[in-house]
C-alpha cells in the first residue's frame, strides 16, 4: 500500500489517475480505516487530502460558504457564521460519531462514503448544497445528492475527488433542520432521518421548501411532493399531517436489523414533521 500526501488538488487528481491498481482518497479516515481493519482489500494507493491547503478551510463566497473537503466536523461546529446560516447542516455533521470522531470526520467523506444512512447528506441535499469536483479535466459543480448513486457507490470518475462543498446564500426568513432516529442517544446509525430547509414570506407562509429523507432508500430521497405539502402553509397541524404522510409515502425502506419497513416508513414521517417545525421556527415562523 502506497501512501501519498499531495499539496494540491491537481496533484491528487494526477496520482489517482495514474494509479495502477485501486486507489482511495483518505480524508478523516473514520470510514476508510475502519473498513480496512475489518477486512477490506487494501488499495494499492492511498491519497491523503489533509495536506491540501485549499481543501482545509471554510470560506465565505457570494454570501454562501465554501467548505473544504478536508475540514473536519469539529471545525465546522466552531464556525459561528456557518452555524448561524446553516444550523441544520452543522447539526447533522455534528451528530457524526463522538467528539473523537468529529475531530477527524469530514462532510465530504460522509458524502463520498455513500452510506444510505450518512447523517450530513439529507441536510446537504435539503440545503441545495453543491459539490465541486476536481479531476484531470476542468472543475465541475454537481448537486450534493448526485454524488452517491447507491450504497458505497459514487458518480465520481477515476481521478476525480470532491474539493469542496458549497452552501449557497439563502434568502431572508429561511431555516433548516435535520433529525435522525437512533434507538440509543449516541454512537449509533440512523434508522431513518430527515432534513428540511424552508423559506417563509413576511406572513410566515412557506414559499419554498426542500425535503430530504435518509436511511429509507438506497440513497438520499429528495421529495418534491413532500415539499409541496409545506408550500403555501403556515405548517398548521393539518398541513403537517399531510406533510408527514407525504414523507412516509416517499420512503422506500427495507426490513433489516435496524427496523421493519413499517417502522422506518412511519418514523421518516414523524422526523420530517418534527424537523419541519424546527426549521419553521428557525426561519422566524411562529408555531
Amino acid at each position, binding site marked *: 500500500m502506497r501512501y501519498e500526501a499531495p499539496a494540491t488538488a491537481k496533484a491528487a487528481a494526477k496520482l489517482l489517475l495514474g494509479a495502477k491498481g485501486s486507489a482511495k482518497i483518505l480524508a478523516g479516515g473514520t470510514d476508510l480505516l475502519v473498513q480496512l481493519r*475489518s477486512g477490506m482489500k487494501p488499495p494499492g494507493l492511498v491519497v491523503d487530502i489533509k495536506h491540501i491547503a485549499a481543501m482545509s478551510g471554510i470560506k465565505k463566497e457570494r454570501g454562501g460558504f465554501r467548505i473544504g473537503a478536508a475540514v473536519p466536523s469539529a471545525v465546522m461546529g466552531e464556525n459561528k457564521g456557518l452555524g448561524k446560516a446553516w444550523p441544520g447542516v452543522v447539526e447533522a455533521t455534528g451528530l457524526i460519531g463522538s467528539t473523537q470522531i468529529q475531530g477527524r470526520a469530514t462532510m465530504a467523506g460522509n458524502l463520498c462514503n455513500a452510506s444510505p444512512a450518512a447523517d450530513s447528506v439529507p441536510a446537504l441535499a435539503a440545503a441545495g448544497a453543491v459539490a465541486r469536483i476536481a479531476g484531470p479535466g476542468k472543475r465541475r459543480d454537481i448537486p450534493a445528492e448526485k454524488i452517491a448513486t447507491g450504497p458505497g457507490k459514487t458518480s465520481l470518475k477515476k481521478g476525480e475527488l470532491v474539493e469542496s462543498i458549497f452552501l449557497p446564500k439563502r434568502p431572508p426568513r429561511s431555516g433548516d433542520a435535520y433529525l435522525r*432516529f437512533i*434507538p*440509543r*442517544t*449516541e*454512537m*449509533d*446509525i440512523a*434508522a431513518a432521518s430527515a432534513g428540511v430547509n424552508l423559506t417563509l414570506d413576511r406572513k410566515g407562509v412557506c414559499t419554498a421548501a426542500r425535503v430530504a429523507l435518509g436511511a429509507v432508500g438506497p440513497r438520499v430521497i429528495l421529495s418534491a411532493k413532500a415539499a409541496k405539502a409545506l408550500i403555501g402553509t403556515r405548517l398548521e397541524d393539518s398541513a403537517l399531517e399531510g406533510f408527514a404522510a407525504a414523507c412516509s409515502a416517499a420512503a422506500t425502506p427495507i426490513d*433489516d*436489523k*435496524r*427496523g*421493519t419497513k*413499517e*417502522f422506518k416508513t*412511519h*418514523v421518516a414521517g*414523524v422526523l420530517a414533521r418534527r424537523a419541519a417545525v424546527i426549521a419553521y421556527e428557525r426561519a422566524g415562523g411562529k408555531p
Partner: protein
Amino acid sequence: MIKTKFKLVGTRPLRPDGVDKVTGRARFGADISAPGMLHALILRSPHAHARIKSIDTSRAEKLPGVKAVVTRDDFKLPEREDLVDICRNVMAREKALYDGHAVAAVAAVSKTVAREALKRIQVEYQVLPHVTDVDAAMKPRAPILHKGMRTIGAEPAAKKDSNVAQIHTFGHGDVVKGFAKADIIIERSFKTEATHQGYIEPHACLATYGADDRADLWCCTQGHYMVRNACAGLLGMEVSHLRVTASEIGGGFGGKTTVFIEPVALALSRKAGKPVKLVMSRDEVFRASGPTSSSSTDVKIGITKKGKITAAQAILRYQGGAFPGSPVQFGAMTGFAPYDLENVHTVGYDVVANRPKQAAYRAPGAPLAAFAIESVIDELAHKIGMDPLEFRLKNAAREGTKSSYGPTFGPIGLEATLKESKKHPHHLAPLGPNQGRGVACGFWFNFGGQTSVSLNIGEDGTVSVVEGNPDIGGSRASMCLMAAEELGVPYEKVRTVIADTASLGYNEVTDGSRVTFAVGMATIKAARQAIAIMCERAAKIWDIPAEAVVWEDGCAKPAGSNAGNFKPMTLAEIAGSAGSTGGPISGHSEATADGAGVSFATHMVDVEVDPDTGKVTVLRYTVFQDAGKAIHPAYVEGQFQGGAAQGVGWAINEEYIYGEDGRLQNPGFLDYRIPVASDLPMIDTVILEIPNPGHPYGVRGVGETSIVPPLAAIANAVSEAAGVRLTHLPMSPPRVLKAMMENGKGAA
C-alpha cells in the same frame, strides 16, 4: 457468631488495582507477548448447520510462515463426559452447528500470513436445514441437531430424537386446586431474545507448550483452574503439567466461565513448538463465545380478590445454543422464589438450536423467568387496584417460607427491600405524560464452593493475601479490607494477589457471586490462623502459655493481669523476629464453603415512551437489595448499578438478530446495542444488610441478584407508559410502536 462491629469493613478505600488500570500498567489478555511468538487465527463456519465432509489444509500448510494448522483431527474426544461438548464446541467435528463454529486454526509468523492461510483452507460443507428459534426447535419436524438425543425427564420416556435435551420440574402443592380457589387468573406468554454479556475485553490468550510436555497458559478468564482442568482434559495432559495464569480481566459477567480459544492455542503451540497468541475479534466474540439463552415462557397465576396468590405456574423453554445445558432449571427454580406459595409448579425445557452454546450471564436464567412472572404479578396487582409493592408484600417469602424450589428460607431480606422501596422518595414522585413506573423483585441463590487462600505475614509487618479467583468486581479491595480488619492493620498494609494454578490449591471459578463470600471467609480464616500463630510466637517470647495471649488492635497482648505484665507486641514486631521464633508466619484456609446466603432485590424504574416512535427513555432507577454485609459499599453499589445497567440494555435494545440463513446479522457494537452512558440515568442504590448466618461477617453475594429484576421492572414501566402490555424483549422502538399502534395507543 456474626461480627457486627467493624473498624474497616464498611468503609470505601481506593481500589488497589486502580492505579494500574488508569495508567495502563494493568495487563489484560492480549497485553502479553513472548519471544518467537506466533499469531493464530480461527477459521469459522459460515453456515448455521452443515456436515463437514472434508477439510483440506495442505495449501495453507505450504504457505511460507505458517507453522501449524489444527482441525478436529488434532483433538481426541475426551473420556471425561463433562468435556465432550466443550471439545465439540471448541472445534467442530462431523458437523458445524452454528454460524461461527470453529472449523480449523492456523498459527503463523504474522496475522497477515495467518489471514492468508485461512483463505487457503478448503472445507467441503453439506449445508443442512437449521433452526435458531426456541419454539421452532421444539416443533415435531424441526431439524435435529444431535442424532440420538432423547429428552431426559420426559414422561413417558422419549422414543424419538429431539432438540429438547431435558425437562426439569419444580414445585409443591396442587396448582389445579389452587386455581379453582382463585377469583382472578391471568395467563400470558412471553418471549425474550438472546443477549451477550458485552464484556469489553475479547477473549485472549498466550499458550507456550514446551518440548517436555509442560505448558504455560496466560489468559483472560473468570477461573484459571477451570481453564487448566478443561485444557488438560482436552489435550490429554496432567493438570500439574499445565500452569495457567489469569490476566487482569476486562469484564466477564459469566461469559468467561468456560474455554473457547485456550485449548486451540495450546494445540497449535504443541504442534508448532512455539508460543502462540490467540485473540478473538469482536465479531468472533459475538458469533462464537457464549451469549444467553433466548426464551419462550407461559405464566399462569391465580389470586383472590384480596390479592392473595392461590396458585402459580410457569412453563419455560430456553434455547441454549448448540449443546444441552441452558440455565432453564435456574429459571424454573428462581422465578417464584420471592413468593410464599401454597401451590406452585414450574416446568423447564432445555432446548438446543443452531446458535453458539450459551454461557452464564449474571444469575443465569433468572432474569428471563422474572420478566415473565413479575409481568403477570404486576398485571394482577393493577387488576385489583392494589399497589404493586403492597401486592408483593402481601405474598412475600419470609424466614420460614418453603421456597418454590424446595428448601425453606432462613433469614432473608425481601420484605426489607419492599418496605424500603415503599417509603423511598422515588415511589412518591409524580409522573408526567407518557411516563410509567415499574417495580419487580428478583432472587438469586448465591454460591460458595472450593476455595483456597494463603495469607503471608511479611518481615516488615505487611501482609499479602494470595487467592485464586480473578478479580472481576473489586474483590481484591474486599479481601484487603477483611484481612486488615482481622489483623488490626491498616488497609494499605495488605496486598491481595491472584496466584497462578501452580501456586495455590484449587479454586472454583469467579461465579455464583461467590468470591466476597467464600474467598472472604477463607481470608478471614487464614488471618485468624496467622493470628493464632502470632499469639503463639508472643507466648514463646514471653514464656507464657499460648492461651494466655489475645490479639487486639493489631497486637498480641497478655490475656489479663494473671498472664503477666508484658508490653503488647505489634504484628510488625512479631514478624520481624519470626526467624528466631519458628520461621515464616502464614495462615491458610482450604475448604468447600457452604452457607452462601440467598439474596433478594426490588427494583423501581421510571420510563418515558415516545408515542410517535416507540422509543423508551429511562428516567429514574433505584435498586434496593440485601447485601448481608457490604464489605466495600462502593463496590456493592457498583454491582447493583451494573446489574441494572445491563438489564436496561437487555430490556430495551440488545438482541441477537439471525437472518433467514441462520447467520448472525449484528456481530458488532453498532447494531448490537448495549446502552451508552447517555442512555442511563444515575442509578440510585439502597443497600440493606440482613446478615447471612453462614458468613463470619454476614456477607451475601451481591453480583447477580441485581440483574434479575430489571427486565420485568422496565417492562412493567413501559407497559404502563405505553398503555399496552409488552411481552417480547427487547422492547426496541419498532416493537413498542407496533404494540401501541395495534392497540390504538400510538399517536399515528
